[in-house]
């Protein structure tokens, strides 16, 4: 994401609008873009979802297979998350191995799923120490207009929520829905000058000084956080962002039922 530079004129325009509480796409500072979620879009995947946050578009797919557990967690299934910023999605994305941004994205989305305990991995054990379900969670950004953190997380949560373990293909009884214990939702807030905005677009992300991504659960508890960029937040701003993440998370959770 390094090549793009927002022109000085656009930067000033974004700043001036925000001082009046407005944004280029007509939203208020704390308003989300239109979010759409389609699930079950890929027949070859055990679960899949295509999510749009405005012009940001993401696909997530879940594939499952049987494998051996890690030695230190013999009775737990395995989750592996990858995120590809394919060059189709943005003129700045390049082919090749994932860079720092893609790695951070994948790891933050992964932690949002893993640390929240969304998937009950103990129920994915077939025979302790021998056979467990391996879940490959693969995310592709199809079109990038900012805030991939939230779109990718929502796509993955939606794909997981609707995934069916293909047990019958492996002679392990009937197919069953992935065991889901909670619905973590991720909300990213950016800081431009001294204003906090939710769900930043690409241009807003370029102009912002700092970013905070917060994953919360149904109870409003915090499950994962990641601050980004070289700017800073005050302790009060962080507390305000956490509250925002809980509120907007509840709003988004309604979309995916």
């Amino acid at each position, binding site marked *: 994401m390094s090549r793009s530079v927002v022109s000085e004129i656009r930067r000033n325009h974004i700043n001036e609008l925000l001082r009046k509480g407005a944004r280029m796409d007509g939203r208020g500072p704390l308003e989300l873009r239109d979010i759409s979620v389609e699930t079950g879009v890929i027949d070859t995947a055990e679960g899949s979802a295509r999510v749009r946050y405005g012009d940001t578009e993401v696909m997530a797919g879940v594939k499952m297979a049987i494998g051996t557990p890690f030695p230190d967690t013999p009775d737990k299934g395995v989750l592996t998350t990858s995120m590809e910023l394919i060059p189709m999605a943005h003129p700045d994305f390049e082919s090749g191995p994932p860079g720092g941004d893609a790695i951070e994205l994948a790891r933050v989305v992964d932690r949002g799923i893993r640390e929240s305990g969304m998937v009950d991995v103990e129920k994915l054990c077939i025979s302790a120490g021998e056979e467990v379900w391996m879940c490959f969670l*693969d995310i592709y950004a199809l079109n990038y207009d900012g805030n991939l953190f939230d779109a990718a997380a929502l796509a993955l949560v939606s794909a997981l929520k609707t995934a069916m373990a293909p047990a019958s293909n492996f002679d392990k009884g009937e197919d069953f829905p992935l065991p889901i214990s909670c619905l973590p939702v991720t909300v990213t807030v950016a800081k431009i000058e001294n204003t906090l905005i939710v769900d930043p677009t690409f241009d807003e992300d370029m102009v912002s000084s700092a970013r905070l991504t917060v994953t919360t659960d149904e109870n409003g508890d915090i499950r994962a956080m990641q601050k980004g960029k070289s700017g800073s937040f005050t302790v009060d701003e962080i507390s305000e962002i956490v509250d925002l993440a809980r509120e907007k998370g509840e709003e988004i959770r309604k979309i995916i039922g």
Partner: protein
Amino acid sequence: MDSDIVMVDDKGKRVDGREANDLRPMKIEAGVLPNADGSAYLEIGKNKVLAAVYGPRECHPRHLQDPTKAIVQCKYNMQSYSVSDRKRPGPDRRSAEISKIISEALESVILTELFPRASIDVYIEIMQANAGTRCAGLTAASVALADAGMPMRDLVPSVAVGKADGKLLLDLNKEEDNFGEADLPLAIIPKTDEVVLLQMDGHMTKEEFDSAMKTGVAACHEIYEMQKDALRRRYSVGEEEEVEE
């Protein structure tokens, strides 16, 4: 190869009910991605394919630049969940080869000499695969190029002709392909019937081959109509939008 498996029944119907020379149901939509200069979404049978075009733009790395024309760089990529056994993300030798032959086929129609030193980048993502993805990708890519307003001699429809159960069958699906005896993907320039992509694997007599070529070229013309339709719909949408403003 197993003689118990029947690919064409007594009445000449294939496993999915098609006749020998029928294409699978096909759907093309142009202009589906906001960022790309041009894009297209294509479904044929159970294949789901996205194509996007960026360019002409500055060519990186610079040593690939051609001072006399633009280079066409296609990246064909199978998404990990697009097949029944998960594919490891990232490039492999198969996708490198397919990317190369699709790049060459597209280069044959793009007026690359108008953009010296530039790169025209074409990205093909296979979201769901069910045999025939290289042809589906190329068909979609040429629509995406047209959507990008790229100066071109023509579109490039593409399809494969296969052989299963000893019979020539158009546009094999996965099941047929798994038990097939030969596969012949091709792509043409419809205005002149020139062949710009051609591969063959398997076993065909010269007579079968000549017949397969004929079937393939005819089917490419069918696909060509659907490509033009997709662009017409895209164009009229553009018109309407402009009117609305």
